[in-house]
């Protein structure tokens, strides 16, 4: 029994890593096409792309080890005169399975300790020191900034400095944009994107995660366009970016990207295309068939190692 569980765990985690490497390596092939789509759709598709290795490995493992499913996809064969349905099992899987599981848990716990815990504490402190102004919290600082913070019950923060230097139109645009983040649960999506790629090196996943962030921002820009013109939203982005140019501390720089410029150009570029439901159905169906087709060869491959 322990052999079977260890092999199943090793299979699942191993497949997750292998499929992850394949999906990250093949991402450049689909990137340009994905980023041309409506950002509401592309942000979901990007998250699905990140989830594909984990979901795919779960599906394949389920087909390998659940007898009722395995009988449809694994060619019937016998071992030592026993012909009943079985999942591949090997006695040496325990140590590698524990090793892989340890690695995945370590990456998740490390990320949680380094990133999430301090951010969560800070969010609580900001709520305590800010004043409630209707649908947002006003930060007592002259630095121009606005953001949405939190996963399950995100809160909108806008600084005093920003409200004092923006027109009512700008504030409407900022609030509509940030409400968009709240409605779409974008911070929770970023968390999922991180969780699904936690076992992989940051440098491998950074491009996909960055594109996902950009798509979420662009989706919220389009939500702001429901009340204001695209040029108005672009104008607010430029205005806030100018205010922040002066507030940037010397020498501070993270992964510098050009999201703001891309967002402005997208707003001025007209309506992006959407993939039809039929196309999405065909793509999803093809992927499912591909995963199902892998079950039999993976079963024999695992038994060959044994």
């Amino acid at each position, binding site marked *: 029994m322990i052999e079977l569980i260890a092999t199943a765990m090793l299979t699942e985690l191993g497949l997750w890593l292998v499929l992850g490497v394949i999906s990250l390596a093949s991402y450049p092939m689909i990137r340009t096409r994905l980023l041309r789509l409506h950002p509401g759709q592309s942000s979901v598709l990007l998250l699905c792309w990140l989830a594909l290795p984990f979901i795919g490995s779960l599906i394949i493992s389920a087909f390998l080890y659940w007898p009722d499913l395995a009988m449809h996809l694994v060619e019937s064969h016998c071992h030592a005169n026993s012909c009943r349905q079985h999942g591949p099992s090997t006695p040496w899987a325990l140590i590698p399975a524990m090793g892989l599981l340890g690695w995945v848990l370590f990456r998740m716990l*490390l990320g949680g*300790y*380094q*990133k*999430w*815990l*301090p*951010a*969560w*504490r*800070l969010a*609580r*402190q*900001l709520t*305590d*020191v800010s004043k409630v102004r209707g649908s947002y919290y006003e*930060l*007592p*600082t002259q*630095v121009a*900034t*606005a*953001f*949405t*913070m939190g*996963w399950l019950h995100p809160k909108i923060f806008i600084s005093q400095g920003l409200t004092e230097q923006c027109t009512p139109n700008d504030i409407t645009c*900022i609030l509509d*944009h940030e409400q968009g*983040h709240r409605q779409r649960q974008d*911070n929770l999506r*970023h*968390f999922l994107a*991180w969780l699904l790629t936690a076992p992989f090196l940051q440098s491998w996943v950074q491009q996909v995660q960055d594109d996902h*962030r950009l798509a*979420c*921002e662009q989706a919220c820009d389009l939500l702001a366009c429901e009340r204001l013109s*695209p*040029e108005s939203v*672009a*104008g607010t982005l*430029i205005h*806030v*970016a*100018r205010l*922040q*140019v002066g*507030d*940037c*501390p010397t020498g*501070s720089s*993270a*992964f*510098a*990207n*050009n*999201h*703001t*410029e891309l967002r*402005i150009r997208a707003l*001025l570029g007209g309506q992006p295309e959407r993939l039809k439901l039929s196309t999405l159905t065909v793509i999803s169906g093809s992927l499912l068939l591909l995963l199902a087709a892998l079950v039999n060869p993976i079963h024999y491959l695992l038994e060959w190692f044994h």
Partner: protein
Amino acid sequence: MFKRRSNSNTLPQLGGLELNVLEVLWAAPGQGAKSVLQQLPDNQKPSLSTVQSTLERLHRKKLLTRSKHSHAYIYIARVARTELLGRLIGGVIRQLHSGSLDPILSSFVDFADGMDDQTLDRLEQLVQQRIQQRTEDGDD
């Protein structure tokens, strides 16, 4: 690899009750635990011993000074409200710039974009051209 907790922002970690106690002492310095308890918001009335522990903790974090009057301590805030809030918000802004809050936050304009005035001028021109084009198309 494992950062010290106090590196995550520029303040010692402060909970909601600690901030409320500080607000009471900023409004009226030189109070003991009983009078601080009386002035806390009605929806946040802990026990006297909890307030005493909180005052003790804030004293250990060097945010309060105290002196003994008969059997009780009297507390005064060491750091002014504006300074403390300034340090807290400054810490947030620094973390916004560094991107370390990315996991839990979505900014309206990402500080990490690092845009310069020339780029912004160019983009503003594009917006104006687009508005002009729209107006002309509308006139047609």
